[in-house]
């Protein structure tokens, strides 16, 4: 067992999926992210933790350029995915976001049927040639979203009719359906009850086999449960980044310790 972990690690270190270098984000005059450097590995769950307003969500949204939709937002520095600068002029955010999927804080199914919700991404990206292909993708995605059994009999019913937890898993299935390589999750459980949260957390753990998952969470327990790596943000700075176990048991920075022990936040 021990050898296995070491071997895994050796592979992972070579497998840097996202590399951020000295990233700064400004909202107008406000300096929201102050020089963040981080390397996120493939097939890993990385958790961003920190007090509210520390910039963790902002940084997450930089990774698939969702910040582009906010007029006053400016991003400086380099973010490389597979060695390519995603803020390069030649990069189309649309193509980028197909590669970097995202799940949001509040479940946001479209006011369409469950089937159409999941089929939306594959349709716009032209992933299915035939109806059978599409059916296939939808079923596979719903299975990976761990919701297939609950909805297989009512695929034509509106997605908005599901419970909160089901809606969030539907949104995960929807994100998975576009075959991304990275999955960003912005506090995916904050609007859910404990049971639904447990289901989603279980799902995240399964997703790790196919994707590199980055999750923002305000719950330290959740970070400890689902992630292998944890990054602690404070006031726009990346304070500490490392193995989840180490961050929670033996943090290096006093600020991390204060947060973990509940003195700040």
């Amino acid at each position: 067992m021990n050898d296995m972990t070491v071997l895994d690690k050796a592979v992972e270190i070579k497998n840097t999926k996202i590399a951020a270098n000295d990233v700064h984000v400004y909202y107008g005059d406000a300096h929201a992210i102050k020089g963040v450097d981080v390397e996120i590995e493939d097939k890993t769950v990385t958790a961003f933790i920190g007090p509210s307003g520390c910039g963790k969500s902002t940084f997450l949204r930089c990774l698939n350029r969702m910040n582009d939709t906010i007029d006053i937002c400016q991003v400086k520095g380099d973010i490389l995915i597979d060695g390519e600068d995603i803020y390069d002029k030649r990069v189309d955010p649309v193509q980028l976001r197909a590669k970097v999927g995202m799940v949001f804080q509040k479940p946001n199914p479209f006011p369409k049927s469950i089937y159409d919700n999941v089929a939306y991404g594959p349709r716009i990206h032209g992933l299915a040639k035939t109806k059978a292909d599409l059916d296939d993708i939808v079923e596979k995605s719903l299975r990976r979203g761990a919701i297939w059994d609950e909805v297989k009999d009512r695929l034509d019913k509106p997605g908005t009719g599901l419970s909160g937890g089901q809606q969030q898993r539907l949104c995960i299935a929807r994100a998975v359906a576009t075959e991304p390589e990275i999955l960003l999750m912005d506090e995916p459980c904050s609007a859910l009850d404990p049971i639904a949260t447990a289901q989603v957390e279980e799902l995240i753990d399964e997703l790790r086999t196919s994707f590199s998952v980055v999750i923002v969470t305000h719950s330290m327990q959740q970070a400890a449960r689902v992630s292998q790596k944890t990054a602690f943000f404070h006031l726009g700075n990346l304070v500490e980044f490392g193995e989840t176990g180490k961050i929670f048991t033996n943090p290096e920075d006093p600020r991390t310790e204060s947060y973990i022990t509940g003195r700040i936040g």
Partner: protein
Amino acid sequence: MSDTSQTSSRQGSSLLELSERTKKRNAAEARFRGYGMTAIAIGLIMLMILVFTIISKGVGAFQQTFVTVQVELLADKLDKKGNRNLDDIKKVTTFGYSPLIRAAAETSVEQAGIATDLKSKDIAGLLSKNAAATLREYVVSNPNQIGDTVTFRFLAQSRVDGYLKGRVTRESIANDKNISVAQLDLVDQLVDAGVIQKSFNLAFIFGSDASDARPEAAGIGVSMLGSLFMMMVVLVLALPIGVAASIYLEEFAPQNWLTDIIEVNIANLAAVPSIVFGILGLAVFINYLHLPTSAPLVGGLVLTLMTLPTIIISTRASLKAVPPSIRDAALGVGASKMQAVFHHVLPLAAPGILTGTIIGLAQALGETAPLLLIGMVGFIASNAPDGLASGLLSPNSAMPAQIYEWAKRADPAFYERAWGGIIILLVFLITMNTIAVILRRRFERRW
């Protein structure tokens, strides 16, 4: 593991190269954006065309052609008894003045050194039919001038005016009995001699309407007063009633079916076609209550009912914007609910109420359809009211009704006046809306 193979189907493709599909989708995106911009552009172009049309066609109404002549006020024609008795002078009708005008017109042509074969009647025909009346008015108010020679600036008749403004051409008058080519030749010479001139026409803004045959004398002033009196009625009735209704609905009304009915009612009244309010006015105020037809009072009442929903909706919005903490604070120091509302909430909501009221008034000012039914169109507004009672009760027109009236008439000379009237109407509306916007900006409070 079979899943992974599918997931990684696009893995390895570079983000830096756009796929064919992305290019197509971006093109669709650009097209869609283009549709949006086109829609905005169409809207703005329509606005520009509208504004341009109004200004280019209406600005002419503010200029009018005048003929300067020297009239010898012959005593033997105007005051045959020679005793300067005003009653005797008044007995001379406008017909008695025509020969003087004819003579004066002929003289001024001679003095300008122009030779013409036209008869004096045709020369005088260049003047408005109003000229004799203007002259008579002058003589009656200045009887001691009889015997003198006085310089007058008479209105030119509308064809001459149209000729100077380019509306009338030698070709277009082929079948026109009012003017001949020879007369136009004379006009050209008189313009060179400075006898005929175009200048600013104050009478259009302040004057009264004129009959079909004298478009050159028509003005919008009297109907402006009609509109003013209507707006007074609207303001005096709609503001207090609207505010009272809003206070009740927003602050006191219990949640019950009656309140629901009132609310649904107000929402629907705001969307009832204005012509229906006209029918209501005709049936209730004129046929049932026997209020006088064409009276600004009736117009004001109808417009009040029409404006109320607008005022109520905006007043309620501004009452709602006052935070409950203000009410709590007043109640906390022992004020009654009524006192809290009237002493604290209402003053804070006042700017919003005022803004809504001005916008409602502006709407009412431009409304025409209901006025048609209560007889404010087709009436020649020739006399300015001389007081509050006559302003409210004696028949009058209103600005939009006057514009409609001119647009209906056969002589194209009236169209110019209709456009000109629109300029004046829009100046009022723009002023009112600007005041509303300034008020809103100035007093808008963010809680």
